[in-house]
């Protein structure tokens, strides 16, 4: 079968208007069903004819999946809320600026207008071997091309490799973990509330998926508890270009400081592992420490303790170390 790209093959399109309808469609059509949010990841796959679902359930008509609502304990963001809305919402800006900042740096204004928060966290990796349709582990094969001795892997992982060395590309994902967000996942007659940290999975758990979502599952909303509301936040994304680029490395940090000491911190990095990675060791190491250059330096070193570079991505070690240092210096950025 000859390869041809840039032409979407036919599929059956469903555009439900309620979550219940969406869920029953997903249940009815089984494994060959694709959930389509903003389409920025999906259409790439479709255009390249690599992922060829028979049925596509498109969610833009489901109003209940959109919008940002205040709750007793924080906010709840519908999965179909656009990144632009997330980046400009006053409550998020006021209390969870970390997420707003990350959302505001996704790709381009056009993509942020179209892309959704749910889609952003559920997107697939951008490993170009996998995206090229190569039959790697993640595609159900038995090989990782990106970690071969001569492979091109400057954008691949330094932590968490398990056969696959791809990285999670999401900008908002690490901020949601830092904010201790809860992901609401529904499937026919069942609702799960999953910690953001557990929502993302590594290749060890399932090499073909980036998140816990399985066919039939629908991420309906994301709840951000008030736990970190108004805390000190830090977000930084390093990319090759200033727009329309995925992070080479990013860091999200939430921190509470009292009397010049770090009482509690959450430090999450992305672009370095197949999942957004919480740096528990760094968090533990800096807890109770004074907010100082020394602490920052130490935290940076702790961050890369178990990192292992591939052939072309050694720079990610100093990069993530330096970003963690910056994050721990406590100055907002």
């Amino acid at each position, binding site marked *: 079968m000859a390869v041809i790209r840039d032409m979407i093959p036919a599929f059956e399109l469903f555009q439900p208007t309620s979550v219940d309808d969406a869920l029953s469609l997903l249940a009815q059509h089984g494994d060959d069903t694709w959930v389509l949010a903003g389409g920025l990841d999906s259409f790439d796959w479709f255009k390249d004819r690599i992922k060829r679902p028979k049925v596509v359930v498109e969610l833009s008509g489901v109003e209940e999946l959109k919008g940002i609502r205040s709750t007793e304990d924080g906010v709840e963001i519908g999965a179909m809320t656009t990144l632009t809305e997330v980046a400009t919402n006053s409550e998020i800006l006021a209390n969870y600026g970390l997420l707003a900042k990350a959302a505001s740096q996704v790709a381009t204004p056009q993509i942020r207008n179209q892309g959704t928060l749910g889609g952003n966290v559920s997107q697939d990796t951008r490993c170009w071997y996998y995206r090229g349709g190569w039959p790697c582990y993640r595609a159900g094969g038995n090989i990782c091309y990106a970690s071969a001795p001569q492979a*091109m892997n400057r954008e691949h992982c330094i932590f968490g490799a398990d056969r696959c060395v791809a990285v999670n590309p999401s900008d908002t994902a690490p901020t949601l973990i830092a904010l201790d967000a809860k992901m609401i996942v529904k499937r026919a007659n069942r609702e799960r509330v999953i910690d953001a940290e557990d929502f993302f999975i590594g290749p060890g758990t399932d090499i073909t998926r980036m998140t816990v979502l399985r066919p039939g599952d629908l991420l309906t909303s994301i709840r951000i508890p008030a736990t970190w509301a108004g805390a000190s936040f830090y977000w930084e994304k*390093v990319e090759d*270009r200033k727009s329309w680029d995925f992070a080479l490395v990013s860091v999200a940090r939430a921190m509470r400081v009292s009397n010049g000491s770090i009482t509690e911190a959450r430090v999450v990095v992305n672009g370095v592992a197949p999942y957004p990675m919480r740096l528990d060791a760094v968090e533990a190491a800096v807890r109770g420490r004074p907010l100082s250059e020394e602490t920052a330096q130490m935290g940076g070193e702790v961050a890369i303790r178990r990192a292992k570079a591939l052939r072309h991505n050694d720079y990610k070690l*100093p990069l993530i170390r330096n970003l963690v240092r910056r994050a721990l210096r406590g100055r907002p950025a």
Partner: protein
Amino acid sequence: MAEKLIGKDIVPPDLVAKVTGRAKFAEDFRAPGMVFAKLLLSPMPHARVRNVDASEALSMPGVLGMLTPDDLPEAPPRSERALTYEPLYEGEPILAVAAVDETTAADAVERIKVDFEPLPFVLDPLKSLHPNGPNARTEGNYFFRSRDPEEQGFRTLKWTEADFAEAGEGRMPMGEPQTEWTVGDIDAGFAEAALVLDETIVHQSLSHHPMEPRSAMAYWQNGKLYLHTSTQSVAQTRVGVARALDLEPDDVVLIGEYCGGGFGSKIRGSPIQLVPALLSRKIGRPVMLRITRYEENYIGRSRPGFQARVKMGYRADGRVTAVDLYIVEDGGAYGSGDFRTAGTVASLSYQPLSMRLRGVSLYTNTPPRSAQRGPGGAQIVGMLEPIMDKAARQLGIDRVAIRRINAPDNNGWLGPQRASLTSAYVREALDKGKEIFGWEEKIRLSGRRNGTKVTGVGVGLSPFVGGSTGFDGLLVIRPDGKLYIHQGIGNLGTHSIADTARAAADVLGMPWNRCVVVWGDTSNHLPWSSVQAGSQTTHAHTRANHAAAMDAKRKLQEIAAREFGGSPGDYATADGSVYLRSNRLQRMSFAYAARRAIQIGGKYSGHELADNLNAVTVTSARALAGQGLVAAARDTYRHEGSTWSFVVGFALVELDVETGQIDLKEYTAVTDCGTVVHPRSLAAQLHGGAVQGFGIARSQKWVFDPQWGVSFAKRFYTARPPGILDVPLEMKWGAVNKPDPQTPVGAKGIGEPPVGAGSAAVASAISDALGGQCLCRTPLTTDVILAALEGRKQPYGPLEIHV
């Protein structure tokens, strides 16, 4: 007397259509019964097609036919054809299928079984030079050109193990060259030098990626081919298509009113435009071939990368005594010769007391190369300018000063023949640039640290060829009183169709609102024009239109003299009238003159033409004959020496020492391109070209998997041309604005040199921010910079390419 148009901003005639979306590009056209074609591309970097089984695809409902290499006209063995059975790079088109819609065509392509036999492939010319290295083509690794057909042909060049061993780790080996020239005594040059630098440098290959992919639509009507295509040049593309299909130029109607960028990749359109033409002839339906971004990455041409070794000697005062340059060029699947231009540009930039160029250009199994905006020049400028900085630092000379010391002037020379220049005002450009950019204050910021940010300041000098001669101008003054300026050049966004037309308007003193530019459709009778490439157009066609306008003016004066008496020299033209100089009331409108020309006939109405015109112009002029006063003339103005333009770029960057991120804060470009024709358009060229240069210096790349020879940078987001946020908010510009003495309007071309200036200035500024460290590679991405800052091993070997 109408105000001179040259030097003033105008609204180009295509502007409204473009910004409102009414402008129709090749893929916007539809013809009755039109069908769509899709291509089947080679999955392998080098293969031979053993068999094609398309039976299933061709029996699908809606599928109308297939075009294979067997259906193409014969071509010389080394030249690229639109389709091939021996693909030389991954993504080379094998065949095309036509169907009622694109979805069906794509489904059909998917069902074709092609049996490919993989052949050895090579991505790196240095690997092909290894004694046991593979060749990119079965016939050899380069093509030896010779006038003697016996001698000409494919050959294989290999270097010895000793050549490789001698260079040592990380240094470019220098075995037997294909080309070598020397000017002066380079041994003496180095002996005289107070400082000698010897560096190995790598410049990436990169795709053109114009916004509009090379789509085309074709149909045949009464034996004529109607081809809507995306091309930089109209008149010459028609001739090229006619030649390729063995047709008379008159049997090709080529429509290319708008071109969404070419940058050298669509000089005469591209080979793939023959596919809809031939497929349409085969199936008897109009065929549209829309090229996708993915396909454009493969067939859309690219700039050849260089691996180079450069040794430069300097006197203590900064004067360059010797340049010894060895370039290994990645010629891609069908070859390239940028390195020759690179050598010439190096000689021009630094006017060395002695120079040697050696080079090889080898085939690799990577997409085809072509000219890319400043071919050879942009590469070498970006590679050598940081070395000039290094020398300036070591010699304690200001970096602008060292360029000033070596810059060419009107007595400058270039290349192996020590060719002369028509004009060069480089020192003036450097001085003006220093002033506009504020070099003296900015240089004080160099190395200043603010938090984690360090400021770097850079300068880059970029020459490029700026014009050709000998083309034709064709004008008609019709009885409606308007001046119709026929342009066979293309319209690729540079405003050339309007800007060069103004040379004619100015000669006749014609107000711009009574000028009509006719372009883009060969059925409108266009003259023979230069290709719109090599920054030729401004020079070539201000001359050609000037010549034609002079012809028109002469004819107007003669008609006036016939009408009112006196000698033609007593009459002048302005504001759409020809009048007696001594009595302006004695006048005749152009409208009237046009009617008189028709009545008089002969040379006035275009029925008699000068005999030095190109056949294309003759055909067009004949078609226009009798419609008014027809003026057609060939540019025969004096021209001795080589015409070159120069751009000096200045950049200020901030480097974040913790992340390796570069923030380009300021950019200024100043040019010597002779007389400024259209300031706003010139600014667009200076800045637009610079943006491409920023991409070369910082982000845009090609990446291949070495094991499979398959490309990854085939989408914008992986190829990474610069985005708008990578461009400084405010960019400044300036021009020396001194006319070139050897062209009537004084204007030289400016399309290309801005690229090298942008690339070199940014590379120079980054190197400055790194404390003078020259990383000797493009692009300078975060990983490369951070490794240097952190003192870690560089992510890529010094000669590693396609990474």
